[in-house]
């Protein structure tokens, strides 16, 4: 059963499937009801599942996540939407001190099957606080699972896997790629699709591994295509916590080089962690240091500068060149 879907529509379809599958699944957030969310990802759900299951919340992110925690204790599986990456921060307390730690604090008696959907990343010409890549904060926090999708197929399945997870999942949606379209096979069983925590080789290659996730996958694939001198393997890491190091190290041991690209800032970013770990595990196979291509360590700039700030095709290729300079 193939359907041609955008990433946004695929998440919508995945949410719908989750709500049909399990009456305990709820959607909550600002403007998610009648409007269907500012990106229309929850379009139609309010109409079809009603206001008890699709909740237009008051404008308060701490309130959204805090009440989702209470709902989860009562047996519900809330999928909360944070309208934009930059508006997660008012919910930081509830997320870091409560949501992430509840299992541990209750000695395993409480589960927190909460999904936090966040449209993230830049490149849409927006004003402040609408273009951030906060994944490192989540990745740094024990108790949270962190995933990002890069194509409609993953969008459709991973949102459903996230909803079924008994751990809190930060579900990062690459907003500038919402409108990318592809065929999605919705007919297979959810048990047959790749698990949410597994990395995926998006393009096989032999000379260098290029690792990315979310919005940067498209750029990484373009870079691999553009570099006619080398055979680049692209890995979509998909899950930032936990990270599927088995797939990554197997690849790096074959290629001898690793370039990690992300929109998050360089210092303390996901690339730093991956570089450290790969260096430990693949030291004798590496032909070059692990190279990071990331945003600069500055606040996200005004939109007229974002094309320079975000790692683009040329910056990624430059990173690949640096790896081959050794």
């Amino acid at each position, binding site marked *: 059963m193939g359907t041609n879907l955008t990433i946004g529509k695929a998440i919508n379809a995945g949410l719908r499937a989750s709500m049909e599958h399990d009456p305990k699944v709820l959607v909550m957030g600002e*403007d998610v009801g009648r409007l269907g969310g500012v990106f229309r990802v929850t379009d139609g759900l309010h109409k079809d599942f009603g206001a008890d299951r699709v909740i237009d919340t008051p404008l308060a992110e701490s309130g959204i996540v805090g009440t989702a925690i209470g709902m989860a204790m009562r047996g519900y599986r809330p999928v909360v939407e944070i309208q934009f990456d930059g508006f997660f921060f008012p919910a930081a307390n509830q997320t870091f001190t409560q949501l992430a730690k509840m299992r541990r604090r209750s000695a395993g008696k409480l589960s927190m099957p909460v999904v936090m959907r966040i449209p993230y990343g830049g490149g849409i010409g927006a004003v*402040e606080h609408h273009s951030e890549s906060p994944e490192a904060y989540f990745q740094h926090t024990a108790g949270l699972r962190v995933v990002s999708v890069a194509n409609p197929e993953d969008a459709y399945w991973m949102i459903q896997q996230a909803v079924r997870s008994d751990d809190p999942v930060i579900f990062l949606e690459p907003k500038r790629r919402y409108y990318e379209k592809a065929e999605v096979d919705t007919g297979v069983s959810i048990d047959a699709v790749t698990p949410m925590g597994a990395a995926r080789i998006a393009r096989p290659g032999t000379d260098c591994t290029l690792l990315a996730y979310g919005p940067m996958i498209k750029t990484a694939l373009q870079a691999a295509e553009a570099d006619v001198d080398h055979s680049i393997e692209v890995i979509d890491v998909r899950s930032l916590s936990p990270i599927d190091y088995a797939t990554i190290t197997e690849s790096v041991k074959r290629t001898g080089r690793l370039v990690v690209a992300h929109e998050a800032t360089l210092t303390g970013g996901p690339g730093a962690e991956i570089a450290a770990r790969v260096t430990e595990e693949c030291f004798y196979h590496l032909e070059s240091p692990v190279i990071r291509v990331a945003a600069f360590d500055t606040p996200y700039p005004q939109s007229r500068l974002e094309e320079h700030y975000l790692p683009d095709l040329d910056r990624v290729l430059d990173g690949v060149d640096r790896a081959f300079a050794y």
Partner: protein
Amino acid sequence: MSQTAAHEEPELIQLLTPEGELKEHPDYPLDISAEEIRALYRDLVLVRRVDSEAVSLQRQGELGLWASLLGQEAAQIGSARALRPDDMAFPSYREHGVAWCRGIEPKELLGMFRGVTNGGWDPHEYGFHLYTIVIGSQALHATGYAMGIQRDGAVGEDGSAVISYFGDGATSQGDTNESFNFAAVNNAPVVFFCQNNQWAISEPLERQARVPIYKRAAGFGFPGVRVDGNDVLACLAVTRAAMDNARTGQGPTLVEAFTYRMGAHTTNDDPSRYRDAAELDEWKAKDPILRVRNHLELYELADEAFFARIDEEADKVGEMVRTQCRSMADPEPLDIFHEVYAEPNVHIDHQRSEFADYLASFEGAGAEGGR
């Protein structure tokens, strides 16, 4: 799940009816000359023009986004004209009318929505803080600033006071409620000016509040008033009284300006998805500019030549806005690294010089990009 209380009959302070008749209010006597009313009319018209030009510029691709103040001109002009030069205002992102009164040139606002700056004006120079997008944040800044005024001993007849602007949706935020409480326990010289435009993007007021917003103040221990937000005279009088109370050590006030967002939330928004067009028609009859014009005509305080002059001036302002916007240059790529830290930072310096080398590597290469 019934929802009723939020739409209780508003106890609205009004000094000017939609038809332009003056009304007396015992608590808010307003001694105002014809010249001052004409000046308010001018502000209202010019600010609406700045706003409508900005909407067009966004449509033409010159701005990334614009948040229109259409319908909220009186709330903003009335309240802002109540401020003294030494007072400090903390806006959200829709306060173009307040910015106008504080002497911020439209191009400063346009720059932000064009993506050329992050604001960048000096808040101290204008007594007007930067636009704040993260809902509710600025209410705490305003309160802290007011606590500073107290510690400076700058409370009194000649003292300063602070005003914080935010919307109805913002009253749900923790930060906003915390600011009410901080202001109350400190008796801080701050006025909370909530423009209740009935909508927070697609969510109507019932999704935010079960009691009229102004009534919240009582629970925190300071007065709250609801003013007709489409009545520039009432907004002026009520804000002036609240600011004077704050200034003279009588603590905070919550002013709820009851108004309506006549346009979309922003240029990205499509209100037809969530609200009835009939609602807009109802509010058009209460238009904040129309009623001042009605008043000036009714009381013969202005002639045709006056209105023609203002329209002409509006055309000039419109043209200025268009020219200023289109001539705004993009920042230089290396600007990314500016103003991150007060002190020299080796880390930033290193990244800047690496990026400069990277950019230089394309020079002479001819084509876009390195390959």
